């Protein structure tokens, strides 16, 4: 009660225009944990995308004279069984893992967002069909579903460089139903609100209702769930790649780098081959989650994970 008077006062001081986004930015900047997450994420992105330019081993690739070296001044994280520099591979793998995570997120958000909006906005039979499909997809266990899809898609004999797009596609097929449901329920609850009923009363066209009134209210939700889903996609990609069903060599991803742990000798004696990529996944996902969490708190302090 006392504090309400205080916040009221504060809000008054803010300029009217863009005050919403400015408030969000202010709340976000106050959250130490999410800033740490953001900083670390930027570091990982720079590490993966800019890092290789500083590595003398990028174009060298295989070096038979230098295999399975333990970490040294020349090779900070040692070399693998083909004599490749692990640190450089870690950077290159980071590019792919991050791209797959991001791509899968964009695809899930687009598919899930569009279908969710259609479902919630037009209701009726379209809604029924979309939601039943989502139900079915969510009924099937995620990992087996990914495995089957991977097995089918492997048979298409796509060139390895396009393989990462296949992985993105698979992850988004598994990822969209949850998002579509979330968006749909948000649209439904928005439609109950006064301002949407006002658009009804004003007789606005559907496109205007959608783009001017509904979409702006959905975007925060999409930003937050999108951010958090990048982490999930990176985890799934690494699992698939670890089992040889995701990104496959010679392309490196953090997940398939850990595959070297499948050889008993590497697992026991050469931890530099598989521990760094595992830590990279861990730190990246934790940063993304911290960031997403901070964004959620900043955008809507009352929004909670279901």
């Amino acid at each position, binding site marked *: 009660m006392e504090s309400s008077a205080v916040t009221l006062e504060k809000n008054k001081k803010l300029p009217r225009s863009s005050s919403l986004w400015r408030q969000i930015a202010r709340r976000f900047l106050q959250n130490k944990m999410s800033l740490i997450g953001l900083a670390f994420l930027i570091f990982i992105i720079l590490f993966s995308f800019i890092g290789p330019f500083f590595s003398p081993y990028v174009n060298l690739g295989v070096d038979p004279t230098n295999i399975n070296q333990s970490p040294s001044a020349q090779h900070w994280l040692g070399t693998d069984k083909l004599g490749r520099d692990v640190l450089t591979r870690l950077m290159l793998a980071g590019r792919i893992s991050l791209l797959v995570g991001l791509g899968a997120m964009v695809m899930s958000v687009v598919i899930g967002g569009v279908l969710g909006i259609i479902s919630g906005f037009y209701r009726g039979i379209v809604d029924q069909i979309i939601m*039943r499909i989502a*139900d079915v997809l969510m009924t*099937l266990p995620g990992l*087996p579903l990914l*495995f089957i*899809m991977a097995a*089918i898609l492997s*048979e298409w004999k796509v060139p390895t460089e396009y393989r990462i797009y296949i992985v993105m596609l698979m992850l988004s097929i598994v990822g969209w139903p949850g998002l579509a449901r979330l968006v749909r329920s948000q649209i439904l609850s928005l439609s109950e609100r006064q301002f949407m009923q006002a658009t009804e009363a004003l007789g606005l066209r559907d496109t205007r209702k959608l783009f001017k009134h509904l979409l702006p209210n959905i975007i925060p939700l999409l930003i937050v769930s999108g951010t958090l889903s990048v982490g999930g996609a990176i985890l799934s990609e*690494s699992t698939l790649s670890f089992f040889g069903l995701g990104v496959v060599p010679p392309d490196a991803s953090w997940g398939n780098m850990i595959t070297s742990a499948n050889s008993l000798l590497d697992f*026991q004696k050469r931890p530099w081959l598989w521990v760094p990529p595992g830590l990279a996944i861990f730190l990246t996902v934790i940063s993304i989650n911290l960031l997403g969490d901070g964004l959620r708190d900043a955008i809507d302090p009352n929004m909670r994970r279901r």
Partner: protein
Amino acid sequence: MKGYVVKRLFYMIPTLFGASILIFFLYSLVPGNFIDADQNLTAERKAELYELHGYNEPVVIRYFIWLKNLLKGDLGYSLQFQLPVGEVIGNYIWSSFIVALASLILTWFIAILVGIVSAIRQYSIWDTFITIIVFAAMATPSFFLGLVIIKIFAVDLGWLPAGGMISTGSNFTGWEYVKDVAEHMILPVLVLTMLGIGGLTRYFRTNMLEVIKQDFMRTARAKGLKERVVIFKHGLRNALLPAITLFSFELPALFGGAIITEQIFNWPGIGAIYMQAFSVRDYPLLMGFTMFIAVLTVLSNLLADILYGIADPRVRVKK
């Protein structure tokens, strides 16, 4: 209530039907099959087996045969084990179950405890520490966690066995056997618990924080009740209520096996069997297992709603 359950059961039909279509056609799209995978078979024998298992029929016909059998409760016949799929699942499900159950109990116990404590000490270092642990648990790839745990506890320290369910070459009986299995269980249970603890702890923490802000908590304190009573009787009960739903969602995980963890620890559970069947393309087993999980998932959703209705007086009366 009864009418509601019947209605919900009715709703399950299209979902399960859709799932069966998706499962069947996905698996029939996967190239290769068990018979082709076997190098030792002669061409004639292969043709015979094709005929025997109906692979010569069009795919749609095969689907309906499969569906008909499903409706009769027949999940199919595993080519790899030469046993009915139901029997294979029955053989391996319990070893998955004991690991899943142990970790479920551990996870819930720790999560509830931690949730309560962090809600009470909202501003302390402890709470920050817990938040970090929660985030860490949610960011670890399961297979990597398994590998690290094996490396530390089994390889480097040598405290516990690295995998399997019983020591190789042993033939313990009675208590010795139980002890041996328990030792093999510790690491997989640890991994599953660490994986599950993040989300659940976070959930309880949020719920408890929400509940302790409620007006009725103030009323309880104003009555002069002991803080213990206020937190546990008034607070926890309200925080646990929505968790009942969550608890039902654990059902598929209890019986479905943990594919990755079982694979990493070489635990002879249903998840490891799935991976094995996948590599030899034992479709009847794969399809039967996937369908089994789908049914469990749908049932657990229903169970969640029913349990919630029983537990929450607000919902109970409405129905």
